[in-house]
């Protein structure tokens, strides 16, 4: 497999079938060291199946995965030692306390008892769980359990972190806390691979985003460049103070498509700047007042919808 020296995750030709369904179809990509990579896709797109193959839980039908240069099929233990993993919908042991859970995880990665206890205390403090650390997880809220889960995956300071929908179903406070920790780990050098169907999360958190649809990788780039590549979804949104015939605007040669919701018009364009200026002079000539005037760049949501519905 071709691999740059700094690629922490390298995937080539990954394929997995379940009976007649091809859950993951010939997916190849790589993630360089230190990157925060987001894997975005609708329900059933193959995100979980992909992450399971990357982390050695599921064996691919075809394809290779290497983690920090280690082939996961040939050396699963050595590869897993480099990773922190949070599977989708997984739980910690509710019979154990928060601290016992995190310590247990650390010991699986070969940490010494004293180191693991120190690190656990620090992590639980960061996750605002210090005062509950010796309580059984059984009575914890969903968000608190998720924080214990994430702390367990961070305890050994992994080189690469895999998270399958880490924030889904949590309240805003827990989501923010978890995103902040992910970013902090990433700043400290940990490569992160996370799946999500939350577009805003991918947009604001990730350095680079891969969009997977029906098992195939549909697009992969930085959020900004993805938006640029789909710039036909840029638009100018306008509403005037009185009913107006906008036919003249549509015939300006700058508008690709028009959408109307209530008294608000949305003109799709390749050049929002020129169109906004054109509309401005149009309003001056007609003595119209604006109640709304805004330029909408392409959003990652537009990109996502275009890619996954196309």
């Amino acid at each position, binding site marked *: 497999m071709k691999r740059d020296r700094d690629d922490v995750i390298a995937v080539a030709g990954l394929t997995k079938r379940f009976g007649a369904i091809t859950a993951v179809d010939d997916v190849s990509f790589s993630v360089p060291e230190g990157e925060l990579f987001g894997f975005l896709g609708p329900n059933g797109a193959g995100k979980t199946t992909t992450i399971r193959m990357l*982390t*050695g*839980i*599921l064996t691919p039908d075809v394809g290779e995965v290497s983690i920090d240069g280690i082939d996961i099929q040939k050396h*699963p*233990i050595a590869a*897993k*030692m480099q*990773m922190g*993993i*949070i*599977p989708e*919908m*997984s*739980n*910690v*042991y*509710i*019979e*154990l306390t928060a601290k*016992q859970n995190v310590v*247990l*995880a650390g*010991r*699986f*990665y*070969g940490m010494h008892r004293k180191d693991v206890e120190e690190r656990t205390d620090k992590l639980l403090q960061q996750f605002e769980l210090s005062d509950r650390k010796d309580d059984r997880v059984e009575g914890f809220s969903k968000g608190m359990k998720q924080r214990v*889960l994430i702390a*367990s995956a961070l305890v050994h300071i992994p080189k690469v972190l895999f998270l399958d929908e880490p924030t889904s179903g949590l309240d805003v406070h827990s989501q923010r806390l978890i995103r902040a920790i992910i970013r902090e780990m990433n700043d400290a050098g940990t490569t992160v691979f996370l799946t999500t169907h939350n577009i805003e999360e991918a947009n604001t958190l990730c350095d680079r985003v891969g969009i997977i649809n029906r098992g195939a990788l549909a697009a992969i780039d930085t959020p900004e460049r993805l938006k640029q590549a789909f710039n036909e979804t840029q638009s100018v949104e306008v509403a005037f103070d009185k009913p107006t015939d906008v036919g003249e605007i549509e015939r300006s040669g700058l508008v690709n498509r028009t959408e109307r919701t209530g008294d608000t018009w949305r003109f799709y364009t390749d050049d929002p700047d020129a169109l906004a200026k054109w509309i401005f002079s149009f309003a001056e000539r007609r003595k119209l007042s604006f109640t709304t005037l805004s330029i909408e760049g392409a959003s990652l949501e537009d990109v996502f919808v275009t890619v996954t519905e196309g």
Partner: protein
Amino acid sequence: MPRDALLSYLRSIALIAEKDMRIYYTKPPVLMFGFLFPLFMFLAFSLGRSADLHTLFPGLAAMFVFFVASSVGPLITPWEKRAGTYERLLSFPVTVNTLILGDVVAGMLFGIIINIIILTAGIAAFGYSVSFIGVLIIALSLMLGAFCFSALGVLLASPASTNPSNVMLLSNLVRFPLIFISGIFVPIASLQGIARVAAYCSPIAYLVNSFELGLLGSAAIPLLLGWAVLIGFSVVFVLLARTLLKRNLMKGL
């Protein structure tokens, strides 16, 4: 295997066993079918009739080892799958082999700890005079038997069901008949024909035999042969459990 790899292999087994001991020893089905149930059977036999407990105790003790050691295994995997902890466990640096051996060790230790108490009490109560060699025989047999029965328990957990009560039901369907063919209530030496053949098919019979030798001083099957058979059963159970567990690894996740 290089030393580091061996150490990390053993460490995983120990950690899995420790986790199992902390979480599953006190689960109601384990206490029920692993401890209370054989206790009541034991009491029924010792109180119900004028049985010769001196000759029956080796068999009853073996039954106890069987029930206790095989009670933990069936519960663990289905319980973990249902609780959503199983996939995370798989994501740790462990293998199917360490998972199975860890679970087997947890059941084995449960069997050993409880039965040290049972055996000590029995020896005191029924006035056996056990030689040093006898103690060694009993101790080693206890370890081999507990390992073997615990492996059977783990094997019984391997079918696909993720419903702990289905698995407990299945495991009891296998465990009860085994008890009755094993020459616990009737000494093997006095069994005839098909009953005797059936007894030889059950791993429990070989532990009964070793306990008889240690406590009473004589037994029908040579000691080493009995031990070899127990080891043989253990290997078969572990390998079968491994095949089934691998096949059903992702079922119910």
